[in-house]
């Protein structure tokens, strides 16, 4: 039993290592030139050579992403609460939200650059725009799916709309909210890196763009790896927060 448990815990690491080994083997066996696809070992070595620059750019991207994400959380919760607690607002806002979400955000970056200039601001806004949608949808869903019987119980006690929202709506929406944060944080990375790639002179996105213009593919891939690692780390942080704060919603998984 004990051995099996350890194996389960090790699987995420094993799968990652397996992917790298496979990648390394494919590149070596088919003799793919590094300017097409570098090996992971090469990327890691180059990444280490440039670690100071990468660190600086990565920290910048992280801040940009977190800033956009923070705005998305505030905006998403407020809008989600409005949309989820009123049928009329839901009907009014839903088509707009879906339409807006369908717009490729990369197409908006030039517009943002026109308004705010090149640099951090459009990157923050892109991260925000791309990541608020899942938060709105999840918070609204959590609030809107309140059992009608429970609403009746509370209303017949004299509960106001606010009472129902505070006592039942928000706690009930918490698992939905935290689930959306995990999705939103990874999307926020996508947003900020897109914007950095198109219009910035700092950040991992910019680093990759300038590296590729110099045909330094290992450095491009080092940048990709750094983004992936940051994404995984942030996802995991919110995963832990989710499990700690909404234990009651995960009760089914405790025995498995």
């Amino acid at each position, binding site marked *: 039993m004990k051995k099996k448990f350890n194996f389960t815990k090790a699987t995420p690491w094993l799968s990652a290592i397996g992917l790298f080994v496979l990648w390394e083997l494919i590149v070596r066996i088919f003799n793919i030139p590094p300017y097409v696809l570098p090996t992971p070992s090469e990327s890691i070595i180059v990444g280490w050579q440039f670690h100071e620059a990468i660190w600086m750019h990565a920290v910048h991207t992280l801040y940009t992403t977190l800033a956009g994400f923070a705005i998305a959380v505030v905006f998403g919760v407020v809008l989600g609460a409005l949309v989820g607690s009123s049928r009329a607002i839901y009907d009014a806002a839903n088509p707009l939200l879906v339409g807006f979400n369908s717009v490729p955000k990369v197409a908006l970056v030039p517009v943002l650059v026109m308004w705010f200039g090149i640099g951090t601001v459009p990157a923050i806004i892109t991260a925000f725009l791309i990541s608020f949608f899942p938060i709105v949808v999840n918070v609204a869903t959590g609030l809107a799916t309140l059992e009608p*019987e429970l609403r009746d*119980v509370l*209303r*017949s*006690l004299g509960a106001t709309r606010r009472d129902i929202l505070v*006592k039942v709506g928000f706690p*009930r929406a918490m698992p939905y909210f935290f689930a959306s944060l995990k999705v939103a944080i990874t999307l926020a990375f996508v947003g900020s890196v897109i914007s950095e790639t198109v219009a910035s002179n700092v950040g991992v996105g910019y680093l990759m763009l300038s590296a590729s213009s110099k045909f330094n593919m290992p450095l491009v891939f080092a940048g990709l790896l750094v983004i992936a690692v940051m994404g995984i780390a942030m996802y995991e942080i919110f995963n832990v927060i989710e499990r700690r704060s909404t234990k*009651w919603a995960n*009760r089914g998984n405790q025995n498995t």
Partner: protein
Amino acid sequence: MSKSFVELNNVRLRYSEGDELALETTNMKIGKGEFIAVVGPSGCGKSSLLKLVSGLMPPSEGNVIVDNKEVSGPLKIVGMAFQNPTLLPWRTTLDNVLLPMEIVKPHRNRLRKHRAEYEERARKLLASVGLQGHEDKYPWELSGGMQQRASLCRSLIHEPDLLMLDEPFGALDAFTREELWDILQNLWMVRPFTVILVTHDLREAAYLADTIYVMSKRPGKILVARDNTLPRPRDQETTFTQPFTDLVHELRSHIRDVRES
């Protein structure tokens, strides 16, 4: 039962303008502390009756009077329990039972200062339905019957004058159900509140109610109001006596007529 506590005067109900009637002209008088049961085929508007009396739904015609006042909005003092216990999964049993105290005035303003006193009250109530020792468990750690007991406690903790039960024991197994009949009867005999019980279990109605109303198919209409004078407290033995089985037979034949009409 000299004076009525709940009165329905020529009440009719449509869910929306132009719809056919959900509830045909209904008149009812329920005395203070009376335990009534409403039985009828499914979809006959039994649950709508509860919503009308508790003010969650306004009548399309006629009026509803509770405690000498015409009902114009949610009543604020009603206890409710449904087939689904609807306990909040993030709260312990004790905190679930205390939920009404966080909403009903004047308790909501006193709760924080007098927490211990209220907890004591909730514990007593839970003990009276056989849930002592389970106060700190979460709802999913309780069986269906225990959840329903907790739900009953939640509907009674604020000592409402009016209790609405919408098939509260419908999802339970037969033994648990009959156990809960006794629990409910005991609670009611200790402190008589007015109860409207909606059910499709005729034995349940015969066991618990003072008056049993039989409703017709949609549009719902009260066809029979049958007094039930079986002596209290009723128990397991009562259900095997001739008067009890006669009553159930009589109700059954009413329902049969309704379904065939």
